[in-house]
């Protein structure tokens, strides 16, 4: 009898601890000029909309060059320094690391140049010529930045920052940290196409599936998925210029500006999807890999074991092809041509 009761109690207790009791909860909103979605799997709706909106507003006040009152805007207007907050410090730190690792292709001091190309807060009426760019490039170099305690210094007043190439990734990480602080271990956060994910989806403890967008000609065409993947915990971001570009003399110019030259990147890559352990890293790398071109990108990735990437590019004959680096292949799940152990 006692044995039976013990067994009964055991089942009752373990039944209460079944992970299959977790279910999806969804939040969504609008921030940083785009939409965000959070799906988290939990037994209760422990993450609410309001704190998420609050965090995103706070991030804007720190990092948005479209808000004149933000910290970054004030740094841009300052002559030599400002006192930073934790967000700006985190972003600067990651940016400087990526700047070194990409040989200067990723450079957040590129703002005067991105502005000149029309990708900044002020409208432009004509595109810059080489002379303008070479003049502006005197203000571009991350070595003009230095941190002392919480103060960020710039060596020249004309140094201005644009962290749009990394801010959404960082914001996804901040949201992820918040969600995890509530005790959630299974989630998918998407902000402007940048994704941060962890764990599994419930019910069923299934792998979380992420679609990689296929490049389409127009934002008015329905989104197409080029690939579907199930990555490990971490982040997925995609860079590409099939949506954001300027037209000049019959050419389309990418919005991805090479920090070494000040000119839009021009090579065979159409889009790059990067996996990294966190979104700030993935986001900092995706534009850089786009700017490098396929060959250099693949070579560079060999020195970055924690990163993996998937490329869509145009072959010399004009046809579209794709390829992947290192362990990105393992995430793909829609290919019928081979069997694999996805190792979830």
């Amino acid at each position, binding site marked *: 009898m006692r044995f039976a009761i013990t067994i009964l109690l055991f089942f009752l207790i373990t039944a209460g601890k079944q992970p299959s009791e977790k279910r999806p909860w969804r939040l969504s909103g*609008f921030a940083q000029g785009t939409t965000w979605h959070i*799906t988290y799997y939990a037994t209760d709706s422990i993450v609410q909309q309001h704190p998420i909106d609050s965090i995103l507003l706070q991030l804007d006040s720190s990092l948005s060059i479209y808000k004149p009152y933000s910290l970054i805007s004030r740094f841009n207007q300052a002559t030599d320094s400002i006192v930073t907050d934790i967000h700006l410090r985190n972003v600067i730190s990651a940016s400087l690391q990526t700047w070194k690792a990409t040989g200067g292709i990723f450079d957040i001091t590129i703002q005067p140049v991105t502005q000149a190309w029309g990708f900044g807060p002020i409208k432009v009426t004509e595109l810059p010529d080489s002379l303008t760019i070479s003049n502006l490039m005197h203000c571009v170099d991350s070595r003009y930045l230095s941190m002392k305690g919480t103060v960020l210094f710039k060596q020249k007043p004309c140094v201005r920052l644009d962290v749009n190439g990394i801010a959404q990734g960082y914001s996804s990480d901040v949201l992820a940290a918040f969600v995890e602080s509530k005790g959630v271990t299974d989630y998918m956060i998407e902000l402007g*196409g940048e994704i941060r994910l962890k764990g599994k989806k419930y019910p069923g403890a299934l792998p979380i599936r992420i*679609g990689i967008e296929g*490049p389409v000609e127009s934002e008015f065409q329905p989104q197409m998925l080029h690939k579907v993947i199930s990555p490990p915990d971490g982040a997925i971001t995609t860079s590409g210029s099939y949506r954001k570009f300027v037209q000049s003399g019959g050419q389309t110019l990418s919005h991805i500006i090479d920090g070494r030259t000040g000119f839009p990147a021009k090579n065979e890559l159409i889009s790059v999807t990067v996996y990294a352990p966190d979104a700030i890293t993935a986001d900092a790398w995706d534009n850089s890999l786009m700017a490098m071109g396929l060959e250099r990108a693949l070579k560079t990735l060999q020195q970055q074991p924690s990163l993996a990437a998937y490329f869509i590019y145009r072959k010399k004959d004009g046809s579209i092809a794709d390829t992947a680096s290192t362990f990105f292949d393992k995430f793909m799940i829609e290919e019928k041509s081979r069997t694999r152990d996805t190792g979830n």
Partner: protein
Amino acid sequence: MSRRKFLHQAGALASGLLLHQQLLAAFGSGIQQTINIGFIGCGDRGRGILHIMRELPSEFRVTAVCDVLDFRLQEMLKDAPGVKSYKDHRKLLEDKELHAVIIATPLNLHYPIAADALAAGKHVFLEKTMTYNIPEASKLVQLAKQHPAQVLQVGHQYRYVPLYFKVKEMIEKGYLGKITHIDCRWDRNWNWRRKVPAGYSDKQVNWRMYKAYSGGLVAELLSHQIDFINWAFNTHPDEVLGTGGIDFYKDGRETFDNVQVILRYNKENMIGNFGATCGNSREGYIFKIKGTKGTVALLVNSGIFYPEPETRKELQVVDGVSGATKIEWNTDGGIPILKEQGKDGTWYALKDFYTCITEKKQPTSNVITGATTAVCVHLANAAAYTNTIQKWKTSYNFSS
């Protein structure tokens, strides 16, 4: 000079002549021709066009204005000081220095004045709706054919606005899918009357209130949207239904202050709903084009595209989508069609009028398309005034 050198240079000269047009364009204001303009009709619209024309000083020079009403003429001269002024349009047309005229008179005078202007050898910018009735539309088409060297442009300016151009492109590229329904309104909360100064009659100033002079709300307002649909789909309606009444402003007017017309496009399998009331302004101008893949909702100067939920079915098999530079959605789930607000439609229309005159081209809004829209307007009014369904006749299929 050796023979080879001579041929080489002659070849260069020949190709140089071919490039002449491009060079002309490239040299800009140096060799640019300025068109001398006379205004016939100086009411609100005429003065409005004048203001916009002042933004194009290298293209147009206003040299003459004409109106039968003294006070209108005086108001116009304030904005165009020093130009010649006339009470009789025929005297204005005798001016040999004048190249083109802008006709912005009451609707019943459109045809006779346009006919006179064509006979006088002038280029014509004729405000919409093109003519007061269908027979006049037909006659004007014939007349314009007899004056092929002269440009006749009709004031359906949405054919020139970049936003509307883009929408036409979106329709043609299939982004909206199969379109079956169009919903247009142009509402206001106002009696649509102008102040009549002492010494003038109501009929002179408020011609819009009288059937003898005006096509009412349909001719003045809805004609824009009706024309756009004809253009975007390269079509015309096959059946027109309509109703209306003097429902609020029972002030002695004859034209309706509340109309609703339905245009059935059988070949395109579409229904177009066009309505206007003088009794509410909440919606103001709306223009919605609805297709299986998406909706376009237009205001005068801006537009938003709303994809249909079904188009996103593929995305439901995944939990998230990673893409480059996310589309900038509005907070209500729509995508703005153009990032920037454009200029007034009239500016673009006048620019094209200039190009057509100087480069001897046919305008996008021309006598044929203007006539087609005029027919639609008159069928709509006939339907509403006589409570009958109006059908398109083959004689309404004008060709150049």
